[in-house]
């Protein structure tokens, strides 16, 4: 648990100007994006909710009126031949 805290206590504000030289010798891992921005996490939630809201309707049984309609269209087609 303690180990995870080291980054934030060590290097203050990560939002400062990006290191322009970056020779890659001084711990390249930390210069990559430290964690996904909050926005990215929120976007995942939004994506999941969008699917959930949609799937809730998709999973409903097909209303009777459409079954009747297709049946009627098909019957009419048969007659017309």
């Amino acid at each position, binding site marked *: 648990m303690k180990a995870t805290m080291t980054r934030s206590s060590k290097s203050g504000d990560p939002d400062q100007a990006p290191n322009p030289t970056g020779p890659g010798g001084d711990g390249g891992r930390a210069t990559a994006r430290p964690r996904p921005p909050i926005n990215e996490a*929120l976007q995942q939630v939004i*994506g999941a*909710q969008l699917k959930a809201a949609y*799937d*809730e309707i998709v999973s409903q049984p*097909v209303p009777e009126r*459409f079954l009747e309609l297709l049946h009627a*269209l*098909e019957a009419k*087609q048969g007659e017309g031949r």
Partner: protein
Amino acid sequence: MTDPQRFKDGLLAEIPGLRAFAISVAGNVERADDLVQDTLMKAWGNMHAYAEGTNMRAWLFTILRNTFYSNYRKRSREVEDDGTYAARLAVHGEQDGHMDLRDFRAALNKLPPDQREALILVGASGFSYEEAAEICGCALGTIKSRINRARTRLAELLAVDSVDDFGPDARSHAVLNAGPRRATIAK
């Protein structure tokens, strides 16, 4: 020549997806189902124009969307201004026990229609950006930017919603709870 039996089965399989998309563009379930019905009838009437083996979903979504914009848009705007759309969907959510989706649906309803449509086609209906662009009759870049704006706006709306809960919308949810169901079979 399209085989009517296979064509019918194809239509049947797409109805759930068409309804879900229709609700998002038409504003409420009743109007959406009328729109789906019109779409199915048009599709049937244009069976000869459908090339078997091509993307029937995209074809049907295009018909649905065109039908909406030529016949339904004016009527639905009145409804949207009412907040009925959000309320309708909220009732839906309640029935299915997905309470947290109410906030989401209300937020979705606040998006401009073109953004909502693009987001749903790609994010929920499962179309590619290219297919969505074709369905909407616009450029690929337009679809991409609509989706980006939709996502940004939703993120803002949902972040706010989680703080101040439901806000003024809550009233309309309570008022418009149960209405008689209309059952029009054919026109």
